[in-house]
């Protein structure tokens, strides 16, 4: 039995987590919120050491030290552009840990426990934890582009998936009636396969939504392990993350104008076959930095549409200098931030904040989209899918239905691109072939530097 002061401590930690989530929903309080959450987690760990009669203290502390070192190292060394992958990995290991905890609980107590609810919670944690672990690994591989970012579907996929679900259900029933290691390990294996199957048909651009979904899954497994271990903090914290994560997943899907079902299983209907893998050889209008500099120099109103390519090339700082120069010349300049610019919702804000772009210059889509009509130049830097008219005109396209920035309504559109390779969603962009569109080829940082030099020359 846990003493009252420890229970109170756990309650305090749970309150910390609630305050943390609340704080994280507003820019002003976000950082403090996160730190409060961390404080709650530390408090909880201290309590568990003090209150529980634990053996093997030394190996446990060593394991914590090792995990901490890996986590901190990963968190500090990651590029801001690779953030989504890292979050996926952190989430995956959390799910894996929950599944292991449930398996151990079963091994230790299996024979003695008669509680049906305990066994149901065990089965749930093992399956969903494994789904989360394996699914996160596949999302990592997709985002890191270690495997194809295109949806992977094959004949018989729905049958295989259905069989997997049935197997999971049957094994769970087996585990609840006859608690045994065999069922537990089989469940973990089936769960892992289901996790892989869940993520395979999801296209690269939609993967972040799946990370958020798996995050919610892991939360629920943690809640279930809380019930198993009779630890109320785990129950509350896990449930909080589960429900907040589910809502966040919906918000993100809405920002892309998609339903979750469509994101997960849309590819099965054959919707994504339009993806272009080859580089098109249709004629486009290309120009040099000098021409584009003149275009910008005589524009009254410029809207910049930044994309993931900008961050990959590390051109944000040069872009900010270019914008500062344009502002000095009296040009009105804003950044149009699509909700899913970058690799996941809100990612672009993080990337531009890193480049010290003032917060006020970042305009959200609803606010800026009507202004493209008055813009002289829309400068699209390393973005593609978020301005692709196919989202409105081609019902079969994987991004169909996603709200886009109407850069095509600007008097001139300038695309800074490395090559004619299609965007992350893998579809051709008609906007590239419009008569008002000019292409400026090259590495974004390099080209941006030249553009800045040309514009300076015009200014003096």
């Amino acid at each position, binding site marked *: 039995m846990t003493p009252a002061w420890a229970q109170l401590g756990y309650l305090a930690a749970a309150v910390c987590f609630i305050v943390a989530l609340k704080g994280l929903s507003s*820019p002003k309080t976000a*950082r403090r919120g996160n730190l409060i959450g961390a404080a709650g*987690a530390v408090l909880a760990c201290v309590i568990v050491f003090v209150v*529980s009669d634990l053996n093997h203290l030394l190996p446990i502390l060593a394991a914590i030290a*090792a995990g901490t070192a890996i986590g*901190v190292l990963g968190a500090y060394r990651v590029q801001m552009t690779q953030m989504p992958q890292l979050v996926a990995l952190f989430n995956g290991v959390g799910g894996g840990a929950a599944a292991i905890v449930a398996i*151990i609980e079963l091994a230790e107590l299996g024979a003695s426990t008669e509680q049906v609810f305990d066994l149901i919670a065990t089965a749930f944690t093992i399956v969903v934890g494994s789904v989360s672990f394996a699914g996160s690994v596949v999302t990592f591989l997709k985002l890191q582009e270690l495997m194809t970012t295109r949806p992977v579907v094959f004949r018989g996929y729905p049958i295989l998936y259905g069989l997997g679900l049935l197997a999971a259900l049957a094994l769970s029933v087996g585990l609840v009636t006859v608690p045994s290691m065999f069922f537990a390990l089989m469940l973990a294996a089936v769960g892992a396969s289901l996790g892989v199957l869940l993520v395979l048909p999801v296209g690269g651009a939609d993967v972040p939504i799946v990370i958020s979904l798996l995050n919610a899954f892991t939360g629920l497994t943690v809640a279930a392990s809380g019930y198993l271990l009779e630890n109320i903090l785990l129950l509350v914290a896990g449930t909080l993350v589960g429900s907040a994560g589910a809502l966040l997943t919906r918000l993100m899907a809405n920002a892309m104008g998609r339903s979750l079902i469509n994101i997960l299983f849309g590819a099965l209907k054959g919707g994504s076959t339009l993806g272009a893998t080859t580089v098109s050889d249709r004629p486009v209008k290309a120009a040099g930095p000098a021409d584009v500099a003149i275009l910008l120099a005589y524009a009254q109103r410029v809207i910049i549409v930044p994309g993931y390519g900008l961050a990959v090339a590390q051109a944000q700082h040069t872009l900010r200098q270019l914008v500062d120069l344009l502002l000095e010349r009296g040009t009105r300049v804003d950044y149009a931030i699509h909700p899913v610019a970058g690799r996941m919702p809100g990612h672009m804000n993080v990337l531009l904040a890193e480049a010290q772009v003032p917060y006020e210059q970042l305009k959200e889509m609803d606010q800026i989209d009507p202004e493209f009509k008055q813009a002289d130049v829309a400068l699209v830097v390393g973005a593609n899918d978020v301005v692709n008219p196919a989202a409105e005109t081609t019902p079969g396209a994987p991004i169909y239905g996603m709200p886009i920035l109407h850069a095509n309504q600007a008097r001139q559109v300038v695309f800074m691109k490395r090559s004619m390779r299609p965007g992350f969603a893998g579809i051709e962009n008609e906007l590239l072939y419009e008569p008002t569109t000019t292409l400026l080829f090259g590495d974004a940082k390099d080209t941006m530097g030249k553009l800045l030099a040309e514009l300076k020359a015009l200014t003096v």
Partner: protein
Amino acid sequence: MSTEPIIWLTIFILAIFVGVEVISKVSATLHTPLMSGANAIHGVILIGAILVAGTAQSTPILVLGLVAVVLASINMVGGFVVTDRMLIMFSRPRRELEKSVRRELDQ
């Protein structure tokens, strides 16, 4: 402590509503840090991992438990640190930023 399932169910349901309520007004700007922060919070499974590792009766179970401890600490510590790294960028005051930029340009 009572382990009456109904009490646990009550806490579970109430926590669902709290979770939905606290983030219902989040701006799209913060979706990424929020996901990352929530991700760090479920790293509290570390407590469960410590408990099972600390009460392990046999070596294989202990090893498995320690693996869970390592994984859970990666989740928890890494999650909070990376979220903080993201959020620093939102909250650094402008003057300090200009200074750091000037330093970069000088180099």
